[in-house]
């Protein structure tokens, strides 16, 4: 399968199965569209007639170059990966390598767009005890097989509401990692309200990554990210995040924003983040119920698509000026990216990745927490609802009719399967898919 598009004055041709990407001139671009549909003579004549500036025999030369690439497996390569789709999961069956610890089902902000219902995940407010956190670490080690790198994400609600327990869990994990032959990588996701020097120092020592929630423009951020008294949080958190990032000294961080129907022009928010001195950025479409006034609409999608294109241009321009920045979804490592097994195996939710509630229940991922039908089991007894695990294990890009022929199948994942399941009930699901494909082109 070929996917070709024009962006920023470039003609890009992606050969999906081989992973090859080519930049071509206009004549070649058009010829690729025709290649294989008509015979050589006819294709060469069409292109030579369409591009009279080509020299004598040049169209034939292009045709032969395309044939050479095809023979090398870099163009029109056949996708033969479908039989491998379940292989990685079968090979690593039962192995868990990442946990999202919901250390606090509570939040000190009252963001109206929060998919976690202000951190409570449709349930009661709760904080995870150290004993539960410790058992979660043991569960992860016990179920990780020979896997060395283990990931633990402190999530909520707002994890800093349970900071002492976070530190205790980290200390416990560090105390056993050598003996168990593991390497823990911790991530902290925070709204910033309780960030102080002590949080910064500890996180910079122990957290492999920190994810800092900021939506960009002050009025955009404060529209949703308010405290319980109705005050916006922008003014409080921005200076804290600036100190946090500066003190990180180059370690991983992301400023992570959400865009909604209220700001489909999210590039303006990216620019504000840059003006504030942040360079590692991520902006995500809101997750909300169909019909929600914050949900992206059909009218928003062209605007969002334009943002992705302009974002790519801005990144290129800033890089040329010696002021580069990173956008999470554009950080595609073309040479050292994931192997084909990883690309076709799904996001790992419910199999190698699970979420743990404050009281120790296991769910396929954070997006399912609170939905009892998806409860997998708990950290003491392990996965007991094997039917749900099986269902998630069988989810891959070739398992879904609408995904298996999509050009973006080896680049985008429409998200955790949680998002995917939700999208089935959302009429604009196709629009969201298109949006993520636009992002892929960028």
């Amino acid at each position: 399968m070929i996917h070709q598009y024009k962006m920023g004055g470039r003609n890009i041709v992606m050969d999906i199965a081989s992973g090859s990407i080519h930049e071509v001139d206009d004549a070649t671009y058009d010829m690729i569209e025709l290649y294989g549909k008509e015979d050589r003579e006819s294709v060469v004549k069409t292109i030579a007639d369409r591009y009279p500036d080509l020299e004598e025999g040049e169209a034939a030369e292009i045709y032969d170059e395309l044939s050479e690439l095809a023979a090398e497996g870099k163009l029109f390569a056949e996708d033969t990966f479908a039989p491998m789709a379940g292989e990685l999961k079968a090979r690593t069956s039962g192995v868990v390598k990442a946990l999202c610890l919901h250390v606090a089902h509570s939040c000190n902000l009252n963001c109206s767009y929060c998919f976690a219902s202000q951190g409570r995940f449709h349930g009661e407010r709760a904080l995870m005890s150290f004993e539960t956190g410790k058992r979660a670490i043991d569960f992860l080690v016990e179920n990780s097989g020979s896997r060395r790198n283990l990931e633990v994400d402190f999530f909520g609600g707002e994890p800093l509401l349970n900071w002492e327990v976070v530190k205790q869990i980290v200390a416990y994990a560090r105390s056993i990692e050598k003996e168990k032959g593991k390497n823990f990588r911790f991530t902290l996701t925070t709204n910033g309200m309780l960030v102080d020097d002590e949080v910064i120092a500890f996180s910079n020592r122990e957290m492999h990554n920190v994810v800092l929630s900021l939506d960009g423009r002050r009025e955009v951020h404060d529209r949703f990210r308010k405290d319980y008294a109705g005050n916006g949080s922008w003014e409080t958190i921005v200076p804290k995040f600036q100190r946090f990032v500066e003190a990180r000294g180059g370690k991983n961080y992301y400023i992570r924003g959400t865009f909604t129907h209220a700001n489909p022009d999210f590039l303006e928010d990216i620019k504000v983040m840059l003006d504030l001195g942040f360079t590692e950025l991520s902006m995500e479409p809101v997750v909300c119920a169909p019909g929600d006034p914050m949900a992206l609409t059909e009218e928003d999608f062209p605007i969002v698509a334009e943002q992705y294109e302009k974002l790519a241009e801005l990144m290129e321009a800033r890089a040329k000026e010696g002021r580069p920045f990173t956008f999470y979804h554009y950080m595609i490592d073309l040479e050292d990216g994931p192997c084909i097994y990883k690309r076709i195996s799904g996001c790992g939710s419910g199999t190698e990745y699970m979420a743990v509630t404050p009281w120790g229940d296991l769910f396929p991922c954070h997006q399912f927490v609170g939905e009892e039908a998806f409860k997998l089991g708990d950290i003491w007894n392990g996965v007991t609802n094997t039917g749900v695990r099986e269902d998630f294990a069988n989810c891959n890009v070739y398992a879904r009719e609408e995904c298996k022929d999509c050009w973006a199948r080896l680049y985008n994942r429409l998200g955790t399967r949680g998002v995917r399941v939700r999208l089935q009930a959302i009429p604009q699901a196709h629009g969201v898919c298109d949006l993520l494909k636009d992002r892929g082109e960028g």
Partner: protein
Amino acid sequence: MKTKHIKTIKTRDLCESAKKGGCGECQTSCQSACKTSCGIANQRCEKSSK
């Protein structure tokens, strides 16, 4: 391949990766910045980064 018409950008050969890939040491897709709409191609291969 680089000709005056075609510039091939260096990428990992996915068909080749089928032969030696699949160790599973790489980061779980969601344990990072997104938690919403994870991409897959922006994950780094642990083997290649060593």
